[in-house]
């Protein structure tokens, strides 16, 4: 691939924010050539967002700090250019495609950069239409942001940088807010634009398997501000680099490794499509046959029962229709489905924030339809996706105590309950800390602790791991599993397939306000029809097993999950959280 001068070139480059004691990037040497497609991976706080800021010019033009070493972009050092010049060369699509939507309609948002460049209106209209057609948004130009989906907003954002005819497209975690199928479409679109328009593409993402659904030239792995690996996907997955640094490697790769296969780049294991299945077939079958039979779990009592539930805001559209299911005591359940399928609405109706039009909700056989929000909150705790939206006190203890103080409990009881909850959540040593010193995962624990003080029997969590890297994801999920082992039933609203597969034996699938599936997560993620109706993807484990010709691919997936679980249990309890690091870096906080 390298033929000419690199477009972007780092030479022994280090960067330290003025607000930080330590450099965030150390000794980076990296060349990116015109027309390349590069994936940059690494856990949160590793410096990958800072690296992105160095590429798109926010560093040094907006964020100040100390630079050592050299960086040239299109032959220019930062001193020779400006942020505006840089943005004509490199277009950035940010992670939060909702916040970056600055126009009142899609058309205005796409035109934003042209407006700032004083282009005449006729030219703008022409360019906007052309670029919008290219990303498939040509018929939505007058839609407001509330009328289009997350995936469509991202397309608008992409069009908004492509109007400048940039050479480089930089995507900061493009998959973070998308459901699996929309994510797949996004990766396809990026791939098409890369090939058809000869753009240089840089993708920053920790969902490696999902990006490797299409070809990339190189994967750069970053850890603690340094580049630790720079290789092709085929080379990378053969090593242990990803796992040892807290990244998630593609599931099918892990499975092949569990089967005892020594991967080599010649087997092309970087992508599931190119993997030489014949070389791994035998060991996979042997591994599968060597597994003990799957244990059957005794089902608990029915705890929560939803009967024929209907809900609608307006007369026009029913948001929930004929929903009915049982959740048993001690279960971990995921509620999945596309955006707008009714997942959040269902959770809100269960918590009593909104009242159903028809049907009943039973808790231990008793109808709670007449209960107030407050009464329900003693049985069912609700944890929002963004902990910053829940936290209203500045000290940890006060925040967790809030719900009890409102109920005017005696001081001693409050202290006892709060300390108990903090101990469960591993926050007891930090009880007198200000919340601002905590990382995202720790804040999440604070919000969970503030629910636990009310002794709920059910916790409902909205996207508990959204935007988290593998290590933080594992921390949060293992913690939830511990809570579950203490007898709390856990319901999660999610579109993370890994979470569903690995942690929730039971999954309920909604689409268009109706329940279309209620089965084990493995069964759902190996059912092609179900997956496509709910915007999910089949798990790569299933595809691997099918391609390898295993007799029962679904049982193979179950065995893999059980094996993983055992391994994690052997590796010991999840690490206790330490003082936050990710949140203190101004750029890597998410």
């Amino acid at each position: 691939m390298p033929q000419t001068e690199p477009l972007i070139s780092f030479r022994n480059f280090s960067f330290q924010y003025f607000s930080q004691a330590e450099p965030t990037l150390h000794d980076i040497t990296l060349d990116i050539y015109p027309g390349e497609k590069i994936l940059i991976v690494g856990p949160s706080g590793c410096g990958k967002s800072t690296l992105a800021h160095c590429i798109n010019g926010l560093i040094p033009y907006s964020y100040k700090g100390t630079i050592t070493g050299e960086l040239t972009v299109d032959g220019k050092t930062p001193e020779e250019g400006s942020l505006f010049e840089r943005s004509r060369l490199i277009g950035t699509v940010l992670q939060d495609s909702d916040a970056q939507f600055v126009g009142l309609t899609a058309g205005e948002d796409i035109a934003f950069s042209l407006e700032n460049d004083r282009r005449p209106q006729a030219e703008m209209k022409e360019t906007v239409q052309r670029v919008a057609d290219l990303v498939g948004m040509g018929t939505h130009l007058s839609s407001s942001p509330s009328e289009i989906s997350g995936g469509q907003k991202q397309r608008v954002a992409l069009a908004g940088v492509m109007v400048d005819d940039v050479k480089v497209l930089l995507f900061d975690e493009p998959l973070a807010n998308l459901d699996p199928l929309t994510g797949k479409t996004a990766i396809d679109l990026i791939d098409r634009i890369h090939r058809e328009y000869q753009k240089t593409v840089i993708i920053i993402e920790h969902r490696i398997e999902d990006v490797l659904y299409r070809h990339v030239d190189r994967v750069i792995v970053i850890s603690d501000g340094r580049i630790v690996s720079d290789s092709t996907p085929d080379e990378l997955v053969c090593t242990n680099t990803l796992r040892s640094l807290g990244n998630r490697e593609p599931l099918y790769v892990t499975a092949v490794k569990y089967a005892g296969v020594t991967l080599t780049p010649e087997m092309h294991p970087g992508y599931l499509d190119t993997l030489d299945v014949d070389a791994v077939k035998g060991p996979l079958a042997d591994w599968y046959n060597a597994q003990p039979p799957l244990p059957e779990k005794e089902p608990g009592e029915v705890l929560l029962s939803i009967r024929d539930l209907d809900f609608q805001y307006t007369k026009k559209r029913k948001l929930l229709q004929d929903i009915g299911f049982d959740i048993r005591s001690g279960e971990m359940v995921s509620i999945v489905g596309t955006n707008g399928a009714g997942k959040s609405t269902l959770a809100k109706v269960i918590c009593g924030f909104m009242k159903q039009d028809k049907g009943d909700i039973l808790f231990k056989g008793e109808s709670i339809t007449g209960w107030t929000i407050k009464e329900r909150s003693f049985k069912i705790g609700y944890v929002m996706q963004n902990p910053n939206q829940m936290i209203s006190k500045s000290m940890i203890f006060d925040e967790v105590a809030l719900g009890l103080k409102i109920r005017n409990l005696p001081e001693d009881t409050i202290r006892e309950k709060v300390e108990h909850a903090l101990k469960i959540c591993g926050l007891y040593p930090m009880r007198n800390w200000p919340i601002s010193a905590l990382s995202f995962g720790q804040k999440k624990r604070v919000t969970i602790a503030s629910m636990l003080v009310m002794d709920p029997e059910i916790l409902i969590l909205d996207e508990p791991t959204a935007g988290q890297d593998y290590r933080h994801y594992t921390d949060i999920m293992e913690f939830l599993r511990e809570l579950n082992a203490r007898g709390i039933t856990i319901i999660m609203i999610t579109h993370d397939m890994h979470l569903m597969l690995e942690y929730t034996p039971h999954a309920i699938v909604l689409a268009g306000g109706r329940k279309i599936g209620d089965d084990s997560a493995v069964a759902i993620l190996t059912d092609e029809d179900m997956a496509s109706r709910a915007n999910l993807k089949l798990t790569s484990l299933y595809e691997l097993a099918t391609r390898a010709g295993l007799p029962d691919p679904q049982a193979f997936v179950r065995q893999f999950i059980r094996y993983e679980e055992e391994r994690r249990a052997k590796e010991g309890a999840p690490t206790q959280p330490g003082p936050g690091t990710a949140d203190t870096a101004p750029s890597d906080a998410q």
Partner: protein
Amino acid sequence: MKSKLFDYIERDNFIFNLSGVTKLLCFLILTFTVMFSYDARVIFLVLIFSFAILRVSEIRFSQIRIMLYYVLVFIAINFILTFVFSPKYGVEIYGTEHDLFRITERYTVTAEQLLYQGTKVLKYLSVIPLGMLFLLTTNPSEFAASLSSIGISYKASFALALTLRYFPDMIRDYNDIALAQQARGLDLSKKEKLGKRLKNMMNIFVPLIFSSLERVDVVSNAMDLRGFGKHKKRTWYAYKPLVKNDYLALAISIAILAGSLAMTFFVNHGRFWNPFI
């Protein structure tokens, strides 16, 4: 809860199809006309005119009902208070005194006072439909472009557009946070005492402010990265260029202003129409 600042419903008629700039300018011209003149006859004509175009614009009564009630209450209060605080202001202005009936020595109702206060009511009644018209018939996208084209700095104009853009999001966040706090037992209903309720509201505003600040950072990065503020001027995608009807509307407005000024200088020889001499 309504999550839009005001309802903009697209329609196809003379008023809707005017450019935002035209509507803003006409609104300003007519407002000036009405504010400058104290000739009840002139104002009454403008009043008829503004109700006529309200009719032409096909705005539904339901869209303006609540606003209208507020305005009527305001006008009524204003009418009473004016009389309470300066019952003889009309006499001062017109220089004559025609008593109609007495309440007390101080509060004698005069024809002058009635004319003065009546004129003021007419002023409000004629300007307010115009304001509502401007708000309800201008595509929000065009606001910023209109403001900027009458000389307001584009950064200030764009700030207005951003407010319109993010206001619904703030409302959504507010509702979500309020629900989560209510689940913890926070009472925001009228059952709670006002002081306590305000304190409880704080528990919603703190997280709202912090999550909005996070957003401000992303938005300003997104704007920087797409060249906002690069030049002293910018163009507008949503700008509607002026066409024949725009000039016609402007001409009508200016004609009304000119007519009113002519009345002021050549007929009334002052801002007041004085029938008492």
